[in-house]
C-alpha cells in the first residue's frame, strides 16, 4: 500500500515538473493584456450582450488578438440584467482580482456610474460601449464614450422637427436617467427654436399596455413626438400602440434605437413611418462598414445585422490597439493610455470619428432615418446625414 502511494506521488511530481515549464513558457514569450467586458449577457437585455460579443469577435477575426506585441485576452462578466450593484461588484472583481488593464462594455448608464469609483481608484481606462447619460463623463476622467451623449439626438430631433415647421412637440421617455436627459434636451431645443412642448410623459419601465400613453398623446394633438424607450418588448409594444391609435401616419415620430436594423424583424408593418436619429446605420456604404458587415455575417450568419451595440464593441478594440501602440515596450499605464486617445481620429464603420480631447465625447455623424417597406422587407432608409455633430461642451 505504502509503496503504491509513493509511486503515485512520484508520478505526480514528475508530471508536475513536466507541466510547469510548459505552462510558464508562453507567458514569458508574450505578454498578455486583459480587457474586462461587463455586459448583460442574460436577462431582458441579453441581446445587447450577444451583440457586444459579436462586435468584439468580428474585430478579432479581422485583426487578430495581437496588439503591439501583447496578446489581448477578453474576460467576460455578466450582470444578468439591469443591475448597477452587480456591475460595480464585477468591475471591482475584474480590476482587483483579474487585474484587467482596460474595462469595456457597461450597458446602462446607472451601471457605468456605479463602476466609476473603482475605475477612478485604479486609474483604468473604461470604454462605454453604449451608456449615454451626459452625467457620465464628468463622473470619471477614465471614461471614453463609444456611443453617444443622449442629449445629442434629442436636440437634433427638435431642430429637425422645427426645420420642417413642426410647432407642437411631445416627448415620451423611459422613466430612468437617460430618459430624463432626453426629455430635457428635447424640450430645451424645441422651445429655443420657437416650438411649444405640449406634453411630456415618463413611462415606467414595467409598463405592459401602452394604449393609455398613445391615447394621451393623441388627445394633446402634437405634430411631433420624441421617443426614448428601451429596445425589445417595450419598444415593440409602444410602437404598436402608437400605430393602433393612428399616430404613426399622422404625426412625425422621432426615436433613437427603438427600431435598429438588427431589431426591425421583431416589428410588424405598424413600424412603417417611424423615424430615428442615430449615430450608426448598417446601410452606410463605406469600405470600413462593408468589411465590418461581411465579417459579422460570415461569422454569425447571413441574416445578422450590426447595431450600435455591435459597433460600440467593435470600435472599442480599435481604441485598445491605439492605447497599446502609444506605450509599446512599457508597462501599461492607464493615464498615458487615456492621453493617447484625446483627439484621436479614425475611420469607423459609422463614418469618421474624433474623440474630443476635453470631454472624451465623440464627434461623429448622425443619420436621420425612416422605416420603409423596401425590397420586400422592412428597412431603415437614411433620409439625411448630419456630419461631424458636436456633443455639448465640445468646441
Amino acid at each position, binding site marked *: 500500500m505504502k509503496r503504491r502511494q509513493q509511486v503515485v506521488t512520484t508520478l505526480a511530481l514528475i508530471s508536475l515538473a513536466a507541466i510547469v515549464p510548459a505552462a510558464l513558457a508562453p507567458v514569458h514569450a508574450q505578454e498578455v493584456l486583459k480587457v474586462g467586458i461587463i455586459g448583460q449577457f442574460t*436577462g431582458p437585455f441579453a441581446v445587447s450582450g450577444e451583440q457586444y460579443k459579436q462586435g468584439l469577435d468580428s474585430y478579432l477575426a479581422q485583426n487578430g488578438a495581437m496588439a503591439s506585441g501583447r496578446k489581448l485576452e477578453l474576460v467576460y462578466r455578466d450582470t444578468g440584467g439591469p443591475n448597477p450593484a452587480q456591475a460595480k461588484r464585477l468591475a471591482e472583481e475584474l480590476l482587483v482580482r483579474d487585474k484587467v488593464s482596460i474595462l469595456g462594455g457597461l450597458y446602462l448608464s446607472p451601471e457605468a456610474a456605479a463602476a466609476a469609483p473603482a475605475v477612478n481608484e485604479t486609474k483604468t481606462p473604461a470604454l462605454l460601449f453604449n451608456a449615454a447619460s451626459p452625467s457620465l463623463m464628468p463622473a470619471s476622467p477614465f471614461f471614453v464614450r463609444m456611443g453617444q451623449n443622449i442629449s445629442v439626438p434629442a436636440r437634433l430631433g427638435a431642430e429637425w422637427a422645427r426645420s420642417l415647421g413642426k410647432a407642437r412637440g411631445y416627448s415620451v421617455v423611459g422613466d430612468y436617467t437617460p430618459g430624463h436627459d432626453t426629455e430635457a434636451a428635447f424640450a430645451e431645443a424645441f422651445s429655443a427654436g420657437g416650438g411649444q412642448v405640449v406634453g411630456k410623459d415618463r413611462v415606467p419601465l414595467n409598463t*405592459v399596455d401602452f394604449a393609455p400613453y398613445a391615447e394621451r398623446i393623441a*388627445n394633446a394633438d402634437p405634430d411631433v413626438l420624441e421617443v426614448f424607450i428601451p429596445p425589445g418588448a417595450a419598444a415593440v*409594444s409602444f410602437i404598436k400602440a402608437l400605430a*393602433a391609435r393612428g399616430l404613426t401616419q399622422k404625426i412625425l415620430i422621432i426615436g433613437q434605437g427603438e427600431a435598429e436594423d438588427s431589431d426591425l424583424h421583431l416589428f410588424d408593418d405598424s413600424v412603417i413611418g417611424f423615424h430615428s436619429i442615430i449615430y450608426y446605420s448598417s446601410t452606410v456604404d463605406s469600405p470600413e462598414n462593408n468589411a465590418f458587415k461581411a465579417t459579422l455575417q460570415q461569422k454569425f450568419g447571413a441574416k445578422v445585422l450590426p447595431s450600435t451595440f455591435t459597433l460600440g464593441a467593435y470600435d472599442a478594440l480599435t481604441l485598445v490597439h491605439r492605447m497599446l501602440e502609444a506605450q509599446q515596450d512599457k508597462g501599461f499605464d492607464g493615464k498615458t493610455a487615456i492621453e493617447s486617445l484625446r483627439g484621436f481620429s479614425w475611420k469607423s464603420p459609422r463614418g469618421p470619428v474624433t474623440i474630443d480631447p476635453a470631454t472624451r465625447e465623440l464627434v461623429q455623424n448622425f443619420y436621420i432615418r425612416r422605416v420603409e417597406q423596401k425590397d420586400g422587407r422592412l428597412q431603415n432608409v437614411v433620409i439625411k446625414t448630419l456630419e461631424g455633430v458636436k456633443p455639448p461642451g465640445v468646441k
Partner: protein
Amino acid sequence: MSTLAFVLLYGVSYGLLLCIISVGLVVTMGLMRVVNLAHGAFAAIGGYLAMGLLTPLGVPFGLAIVLAVVAVAAFSVVIERLLYVHLYGASELDQVLLTVGINFIVVAGLTLAFGPNVLPTRLPASLATSVDLGFRSFETYRLLVLGVGVVVIGALWLVFERTALGARLRAAVDNRSMTQAIGIDVSRLFSIAFALGSGLAALGGALGAPLLPLEPLYPFKYLVLVLVIVALSGFGNIRATLLVAVFVGIVDTAGRYFLPDSGSFTLYVLLIVLIVWRPDGLLARRARR
C-alpha cells in the same frame, strides 16, 4: 365622455386578457392548494407554439391558437403526473422551489431555442385594423379579446356552476377529504383541472401575444400581475376573478392615463388596500369562519 369610453374599453379588454391567463391558476390553486408559480410558463409555451404555427407554417390565427391550447393542456397533464403529484400536501417552500425551478428551465429553454429577443408576432391583416364604434374607433384585435374573454369566462362559469363536473370541482375546493370520502376520484379531478388551467393560460399567452409580447422572460415578467389577481380573487372563485381582473385592467389603464408618471403604482396601492380589507379575497364567503 370619450375619456371614460377609452378607459372602459381598453381597461376591460386588458383586464379580460389578464383574467383568461389568471383564472386557470385561481382554479388549480383553489383545488390543489399548490402555488403554481410556473403558471406563466404554460402561457409562454402556448404563445410560442401558436406564433410558431402562425408565422412560419401559415396556419390560420384561430386554428393556431386552438392547436396550441390543446397541445399545452395535454402536455400539462404529463407534467402534473410526473412532477406536481409530489407537491400535493408538500410545504409551500417545496412548491415554490419546484415551480420557480420549472420557470427557470422554461426561460432557459426558450432562450436556447428562440434567442433572447422578443418573438415577432404578426396579426392577420383582418385583425390589424380598427372598427368605428360610432363614438370612437377601436382596435379590431381588442374587440376580439373582449369577445373571446366574455365567451371563455362565461363557458367556464357555466361548467363550474351548472354541471356535475363543476359541482365535484367546487366540492373538492371546499373540502377535499370529504369529497374523496364520498367516492369522487379527486386525483383525476386534479388532472382535469390542471389541464383546464394550463390550457386557459396557453389561450391567454397565444391570444394576448400582440399585447403581452412573447419573450423568454415571459413566465416571470407577468407573474406579478397574475399573482395580484389571484391574491385578490381568493380560492377557486371564478366570479371574483372576473371582477378583480377587469377592475385591475381599468385601474391600471386609468392610472396610467391620468397619472402617467406614477400610474404604475395605483395598482399596487389598490392591492394593499384590498388585501387589508378582504384578506381572503374580494368575494370570499365569510360564513366559513
